[in-house]
């Protein structure tokens, strides 16, 4: 069997091309609803519960999410499910308690660094804004590559130049509708993509399970260790207890404070809706992990049953493991439905890009550029700057995403670049909201501590027999610990003498 043999036919190309034009039409349609900055960034704070769930899921269930989760399933088997279990409990805990998100929505902030200023002053906001934008934009760095690999695996089309042109066209379309319609456009597109992608994923799971057989999923293939297929803490699973701890801290902080997700809570009609949004979405968070992992697991079982494919994924010239799931789905799903799934995935790719572009460009405008201008900036100018930032970040991604080859795996890269922002942000927001003694110095130390996470993608984290203290997971956990301790000791040793006028205001 040819590795890139696929059921993808002309009809599937037609479905994909028609489908990805719809968002641009929506962007043009809703432009008339954008009258002020809050309409553009937080949809006028008018999101009700169900549309908020759809848009949160649409954002957090991107093509990249599907790719890195299916890769985890492909590499680690059922033991990968533990990440989904951890995440669902973290999101549910946030939803039931309203931890962080309720208060932030109550304060009517539009970005996380806006809270930094309310609590710690302008300088902390600017530092926090820069670190957030840096971590966030780098975090998007590999999205285009993952998208290109998915496309290659599903369609069997492998011309590198053609792939780059296709991905570039999709990114340009995202830029157009996000620049035109802002959050309103993003919300409507997310809803449409939620519907198509969710139904596609559920039906796709049925095909995947039917192909390999339900019982075979729960039997470790002969090429892997049986214990590591099931148990995430067992030796050889590739995870271990430090990894599990890292996942708890990372998913909890990301659940509460990842700007693109939190933006939905901040766009909610009331603080209560923001809280409910998380409780309901916990099921979506579980699904966005477990369903792609299931596809990856089925792909691995299928590959291990097919000698030609097994050979392609092993040895020195082995295919990248990200290809496992798309290559499998291309052979299992029937033509027509495969086109719909691919369209849904490309739409998911676009919906993640639109939200992230909007998030990071609003941070740059609101939290870095605007605070630097003493006389303030008008709403109209902010809107223009935000749109310019969207295009600039898009161009950066085009260059970085298509030409930069990361030295580490996709999930490793995502986790580490996410930690650059999250370690500081989670500490600063939690302390700022719930600890009266938290000071500006402590906040700055915590934010800067996040930069330690960059060490997690260094060359020393690769290869066999890496000492635990140089592993990406240990560096990730330590970054959170240093940020936390930095906030405590910084605040106790250098307390704010009096609340500044700025903070009081």
């Amino acid at each position, binding site marked *: 069997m040819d590795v890139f043999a696929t059921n993808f036919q002309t009809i599937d190309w037609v479905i994909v091309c028609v489908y990805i034009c719809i968002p641009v039409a929506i962007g043009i349609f809703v432009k008339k*609803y954008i*009258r002020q900055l809050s*309409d553009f960034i937080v*949809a*006028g704070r*008018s*999101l*009700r*519960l*169900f*549309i*908020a*769930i*759809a848009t949160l*899921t649409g954002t957090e269930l991107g093509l990249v999410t599907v790719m890195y989760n299916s890769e985890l399933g492909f590499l680690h088997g*059922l*033991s990968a*499910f533990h990440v*989904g*279990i951890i995440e669902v409990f973290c999101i549910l805990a946030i939803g039931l308690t309203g931890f962080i998100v309720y208060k932030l929505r109550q304060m009517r902030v539009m970005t996380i660094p806006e809270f930094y200023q309310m609590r710690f002053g302008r300088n902390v906001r600017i530092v926090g804004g820069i670190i957030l934008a840096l971590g966030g934009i780098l975090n998007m760095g590999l999205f285009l590559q993952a998208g290109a690999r998915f496309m290659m695996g599903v369609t069997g089309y492998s011309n590198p130049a053609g792939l780059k042109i296709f991905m570039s066209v999709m990114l340009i379309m995202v830029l157009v509708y996000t620049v035109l319609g802002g959050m*309103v456009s993003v*919300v*409507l597109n997310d*809803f449409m993509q*939620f*519907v198509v992608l*969710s*139904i596609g994923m*559920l039906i796709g*799971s049925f095909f995947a399970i039917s192909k390999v057989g339900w019982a075979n*999923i*729960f039997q470790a293939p002969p090429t892997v260790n049986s214990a590591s297929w*099931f*148990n995430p803490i067992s030796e050889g699973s590739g995870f271990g207890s430090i990894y599990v701890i890292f996942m708890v801290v990372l998913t909890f902080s990301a659940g509460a404070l990842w700007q693109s997700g939190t933006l939905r809570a901040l766009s909610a*009609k*009331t*603080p209560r809706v923001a809280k409910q949004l998380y409780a*309901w979405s916990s*099921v*979506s968070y*579980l*699904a966005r992990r*477990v*369903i792609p992992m*299931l596809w990856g697991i089925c792909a691995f079982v299928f590959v291990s049953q097919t000698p030609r494919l097994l050979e392609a994924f092993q040895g020195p010239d082995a295919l990248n493991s990200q290809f496992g799931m798309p290559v499998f789905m291309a052979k299992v799903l029937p033509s027509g439905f495969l086109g719909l799934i691919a369209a849904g995935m490309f739409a998911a790719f676009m919906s993640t890009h639109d939200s992230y572009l909007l998030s990071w460009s609003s941070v740059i405008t609101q939290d870095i550029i605007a605070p630097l201008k003493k006389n303030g900036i008008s709403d109209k100018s902010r809107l223009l700057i935000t749109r310019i930032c969207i295009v600039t970040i898009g161009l950066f991604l085009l260059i970085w995403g298509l030409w930069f080859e990361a030295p580490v795996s996709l999930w490793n890269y995502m986790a580490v670049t996410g930690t650059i922002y999250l370690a500081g942000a989670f500490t600063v927001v939690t302390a700022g909201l719930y600890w009266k003694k938290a000071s500006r110095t402590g906040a700055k130390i915590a934010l800067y501590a996040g930069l330690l996470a960059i060490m997690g993608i260094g060359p020393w984290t690769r290869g066999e027999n890496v000492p635990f203290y140089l592993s990406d997971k240990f560096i990730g956990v330590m970054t959170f610990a240093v940020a936390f301790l930095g906030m405590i000791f910084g605040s106790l040793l250098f307390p704010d003498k009096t609340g500044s006028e700025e903070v009081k205001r």
Partner: protein
Amino acid sequence: MNWELLWKAVLIFTLSGYSLLVIIVIIGGVGNIVDMLRDLTNPPDPDQE
């Protein structure tokens, strides 16, 4: 610990729970979109919270 049983339960819960959520959100979401667009065309209501 019976990992096999745990992951079976997780998988069944995810597929059935998510199917239910999708149905609920599709039905409720359409109404929410209409309300959102109405809010954006009307002047803001200061008492909404």
